């Protein structure tokens, strides 16, 4: 009887068997990488804005304090995007007819709000509270990066649950002394002061019996 298969068949079938085992494994690894990539998480993503607002210019060069616009950050959950009115406090004097500020003036005139595009986006079922973080020494930069160096605002963290947990599991080395929360790069050169405050906060958390990895800390 003649051979049913060509000699190559043996190798072929062995290769095939190998694939049966390896292919799913590879696909799995590929998936794991993709979901963690910026492509999915949006880490490092720039977002166009109706007005090309530069944190570098306002917060960095001019040196306006974060809290001047984000008025809620120390007192409530929502850090607050400033109303058009806030922009106009300066821009009614400065650059009063700069083309790039036209939308701001238009909004002030028409009373129609500016539609800023969200940069740091959390799912709707995640409840983040700004003031409890800031008041306990978690600097803006921990999540938002050094906005003083951002001509256009960029998402600097992956904002995945795993990323949040990393900090909630060991906050102490993310906490800085009260004064430094609003610095651009507070983690650069941590002082004994920082460590002392971090220690105090940790002590409070432990004493309060709160568990920062409880689901209800973020989800309701």
């Amino acid at each position: 009887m003649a051979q049913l298969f060509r000699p190559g068949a043996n190798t072929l079938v062995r290769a095939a068997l190998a694939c049966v085992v390896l292919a799913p494994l590879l696909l799995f690894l590929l998936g794991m990488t993709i979901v963690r990539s910026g492509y999915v998480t949006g880490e490092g993503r720039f977002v166009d804005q109706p007005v090309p607002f530069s944190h570098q210019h306002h917060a960095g060069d001019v040196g306006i304090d974060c809290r001047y616009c984000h008025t809620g950050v120390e007192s409530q959950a929502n850090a607050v995007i400033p109303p058009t009115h806030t922009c106009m406090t300066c821009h009614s004097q400065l650059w009063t007819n700069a083309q790039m500020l036209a939308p701001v003036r238009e909004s002030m005139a028409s009373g129609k709000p500016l539609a800023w595009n969200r940069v740091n986006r959390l799912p709707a079922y995640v409840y983040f509270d700004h003031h409890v973080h800031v008041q306990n020494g978690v600097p803006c930069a921990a999540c938002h990066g050094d906005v003083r160096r951002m001509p256009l605002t960029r998402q600097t963290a992956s904002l995945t649950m795993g990323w949040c947990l990393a900090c909630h599991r060991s906050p102490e080395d993310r906490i800085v002394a009260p004064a430094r929360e609003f610095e651009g790069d507070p983690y650069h050169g941590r002082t004994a002061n920082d460590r002392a405050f971090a220690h105090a906060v940790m002590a409070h958390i432990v004493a309060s019996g709160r568990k920062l990895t409880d689901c209800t800390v973020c989800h309701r």
Partner: protein
Amino acid sequence: MSGVQMRHVRKQSPRWVLPSVTSLDHVTEAVAAPMMDRPAGPRYWIAFATMAALTLAGALGIAFSLAYGPGLWGNNSAVVWGFPIANYVWWIGIGNAGTLISSLLLLTRQKWRASINRAAEAMTLFAVSMAGIFPILHLGRQVYFYWLFPYPQAMGVWPQWRSALVWDFWSILSYLLFSILFFYVGLIPDVAALRDRPGKRGWRRFYGVLAMGWQGTPRQWRAQRRLHSIMAVIAVPLVCSVHSIVGLDFAASLMPGWTESIFPPYFVVGAFFSGFAVVVLIMLVIRWSMNLEGLIVPAHFDVMAKVILASAIVMGSSYGAEWFSAWWGGERGDIRLVVYEFTGDYWWLYLLMLAMNVLAPQLFWVAKLRTNAWALVGVSVGVLVGMWLERILIILNTLSTGYEPSFWRTYAPTIVDFIILGGTLAAFVLLFLILARLIPVVSMYEVRDLLADERQA
């Protein structure tokens, strides 16, 4: 089939292959010819079309359920589980029997398994596949079923290993894949035979690939036989544990009527029970449709009927044990439940269930009925209905009368529930119809072995 009452055989030392089968080649031809040479007749295609249509209907039912949610079913706020879970338990039960039969009989050197084990194992594969649909389908958010699998999520959370549902996940997965391997190991020599048998080249190449270059040298036979028995040794505890775990879905709770240590064993017996019923039906159909009277003989049915009878008795006593332990334990909740079983909203279903599972099989005390086709069909179907009722009643009776009377609710299934159940039944048959055209439904090499033995004796 030729004559409802099969020609009865002498009790002592039954012959498992009729004298009509003379040579080894005869065995191969008897099994392979109808499959490879003869085109499928109109009867086949009619059956195929009907089953395909019903399967499609079931698929639609599932599609709608996925689109609109579990709200399409009869489940309510108290009876949160309904058909899907019952179907799952029922199918997995049927699925258990196949591998159990084949492996248990292999270990106990039951020669007669030769002609039924292939079909039994195939039944396992298909039944478990059907069962596998339901745990996913019954979820509220089916798209996230994979959260039961422990992979490094970006969320940083893992499955909750204490949940019986996670155990389920692993047992179905393991059992399905294991059964496929077991099935394949037993299949290799036969596909090799089909490869070497004159026929269309394309098909022969197909079988050639499946055979993986099997030649039948003593070395290969030794390896194959050794692995087969090792897998059989693993299969027996695996099968039992799989259905024990299904039992634990209920037993590992604190609802009256569920928290019963008897559940695991009693689920296993139930599985064996319903599985054998299906095997009987399948063997009857194969024997009749593929004219395998020579290889599947009355003695086979006689033995299987005895097994069904035995398990019916065990089932009966398990029910008895349930009632007794309720009374003996004195737990008010359990007593109330037993009373509810007989007097509550589902009393007639419960009595029907007892009739089917315990009384009907008693017919097999009569020797003649054990080989009477209609009796076999009737009892087997009865047992299947009875076992399905048992599964659904386990859910309904407990969930309809929980600890809080203010939240007692009765359950009524919807048309969608029935469509989906029917769909899986049809799909099961459909798969078998396809299988019958693809691979030998009787293990040829084992029957050769058996034949050789009997001829020497």
